[in-house]
């Protein structure tokens, strides 16, 4: 009997664990280690953050789902990995620390044959003074990264809207809280959902809404932007993004590294080296992401964290990490199997793997400050990676170490993404987009780096319907209800 341990029960980990349990059956064991008792459909946190959904609408208890799937569930966080075992065992093991199940604070070592690291991001609020401490949100801004954060954001937003009702003009600032953030899409959704709610409430004239982003141009989204075929033209995402901001009257600052947050004020450095300030009454700034800080030790107990993990804390996989200039970046630098090059029984999926480099053009201010988005690893690619990695591990368990590994390169897969711009079955809107491939391949698609037959985007009510239906569909799938396997990632 073999044991697969999956670290993290988010999009990638939950997909990997549930498929692996299904494919492996009762002969082998799948263990999930994840610190939260609930699963969260993160994209709908945006709607929680404007009071359009509740925390309960976007979460459900994991324990009954894992029981139904025959998965051993440990409500705990992984602390360290010993891929070679230690002085008393040759078997690989992971050390975990419980956060629930009546054992909070207790440690346990779990041996494994294979491990999938799908621990997602550490929300690194502490990287910007005033934005927070470590992975904890500070007191001056709100966040929508977790369901609890979003619930808190909705309460704060309501207070600001109440002030507008009393005739007090309010300033709203949304965007990225550091020069190296990713996930601009989430901030984009939040700012337009706020604008939509404020307009619906008849308060639009009482709000100044301001966007601040580390992207060097609007519509970069950490992917270097994208080009779509529209009305016979091939057009940059910049045109569409600027259009929406102008239409909705939302001002924007780009190329900004927020370096300090205070009560009602942020300070930032721009790509031209100048320093600016923005005031706010309500602000949601996305934190930068880092790895969750797992350690690794060899058999002798020596720290080998820098062998297994990149300096940003994400796990090294089969990517080409050789540093090289932007002009020499290739689609083939991106990993295909997500297997750790040193320890073949370790895999990573979703945000937890270390990308070879960013996707957008690297940018630096004259003061030497790096200001560029880091690569997004959105839901669909994370799910596809989780499934591919689970497939590989199942084949390794069933057919031995020479089994073929399954591949899911972000330079060969597309992503469908629906960015909400306001909720409502009759008056909602969302930008429905597909991009193919996620990582541009300029050798295969000279010019735009992508296949413009499969890269498109449009905004409208239809996009909102799709986004809302996906909310129900993915929660249905994650609960492993009948036919869950036929719903694509």
């Amino acid at each position: 009997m073999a044991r697969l341990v999956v670290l993290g029960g988010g999009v990638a980990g939950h997909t990997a664990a549930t498929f692996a349990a299904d494919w492996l059956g009762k002969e082998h064991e799948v263990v999930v280690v994840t610190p939260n008792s609930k699963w969260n459909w993160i994209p709908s946190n945006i709607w929680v953050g404007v009071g359009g959904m509740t925390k309960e609408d976007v979460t459900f208890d994991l324990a009954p789902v894992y029981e139904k799937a025959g998965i051993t569930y440990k409500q705990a966080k992984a602390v360290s990995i010993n891929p070679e075992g230690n002085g008393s065992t040759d078997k690989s093991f992971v050390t975990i620390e419980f956060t629930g199940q009546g054992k909070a604070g207790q440690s346990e070592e779990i041996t494994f044959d294979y491990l999938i690291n799908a621990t997602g991001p550490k929300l690194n609020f502490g990287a910007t003074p005033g934005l927070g401490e470590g992975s904890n949100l500070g007191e001056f801004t709100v966040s929508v990264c977790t369901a609890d954060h979003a619930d808190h954001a909705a309460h704060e937003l309501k207070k600001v809207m109440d002030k507008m009702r009393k005739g007090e003009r309010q300033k709203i600032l949304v965007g990225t809280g550091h020069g190296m953030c990713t996930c601009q899409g989430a901030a984009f959704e939040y700012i337009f959902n706020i604008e939509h709610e404020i307009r619906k409430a008849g308060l639009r004239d009482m709000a100044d809404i301001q966007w601040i982003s580390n992207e060097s141009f609007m519509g970069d989204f950490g992917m270097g932007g994208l080009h779509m075929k529209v009305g016979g033209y091939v057009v940059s995402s910049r045109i569409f993004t600027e259009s929406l901001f102008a239409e909705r009257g939302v001002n924007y600052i780009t190329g900004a590294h927020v370096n300090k947050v205070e009560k009602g004020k942020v300070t930032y450095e721009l790509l031209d080296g100048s320093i600016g300030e923005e005031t706010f009454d309500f602000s949601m700034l996305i934190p930068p992401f880092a790895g969750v800080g797992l350690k690794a030790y060899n058999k002798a107990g020596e720290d080998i964290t820098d062998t297994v993990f990149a300096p940003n804390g994400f796990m090294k996989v089969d990517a080409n990490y050789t540093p090289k200039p932007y002009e020499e970046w290739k689609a083939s630098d991106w990993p295909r199997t997500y297997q750790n090059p040193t320890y073949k029984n370790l895999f990573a999926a979703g945000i937890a793997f270390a990308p070879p480099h960013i996707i957008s053009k690297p940018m630096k201010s004259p003061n030497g400050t790096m200001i560029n988005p880091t690569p997004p690893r959105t839901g669909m690619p994370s799910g596809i990676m989780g499934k591919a990695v689970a497939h590989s591990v199942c084949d390794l368990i069933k057919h031995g170490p020479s089994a073929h590994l399954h591949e899911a390169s972000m330079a060969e897969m597309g992503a469908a993404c629906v960015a909400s711009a306001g909720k409502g079955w009759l008056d909602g809107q969302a930008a429905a987009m597909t991009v193919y491939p996620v990582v541009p391949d300029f050798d295969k698609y000279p010019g735009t780096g992508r296949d413009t037959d499969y890269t498109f985007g449009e905004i409208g009510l239809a996009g909102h319907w799709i986004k809302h239906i996906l909310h129900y569909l993915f929660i249905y799938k994650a609960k492993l209800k009948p036919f869950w396997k036929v719903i694509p990632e």
Partner: protein
Amino acid sequence: MAVKEEEFNFAKNDKFNTAMIPGKFARAMRTCKIWQFIRFVIINIKMIIVVGKSH
């Protein structure tokens, strides 16, 4: 002559002035239920093709 509502934002700042802002018809089509139902079907087909190519 009164400013058309959808053209009002052009004058707000230089960035908006050089942007492409949808007019009344384009905006109305975005929430026109019949047109959006047709777009819903088309977008779904396009997305299913991309999802299919990616798995």
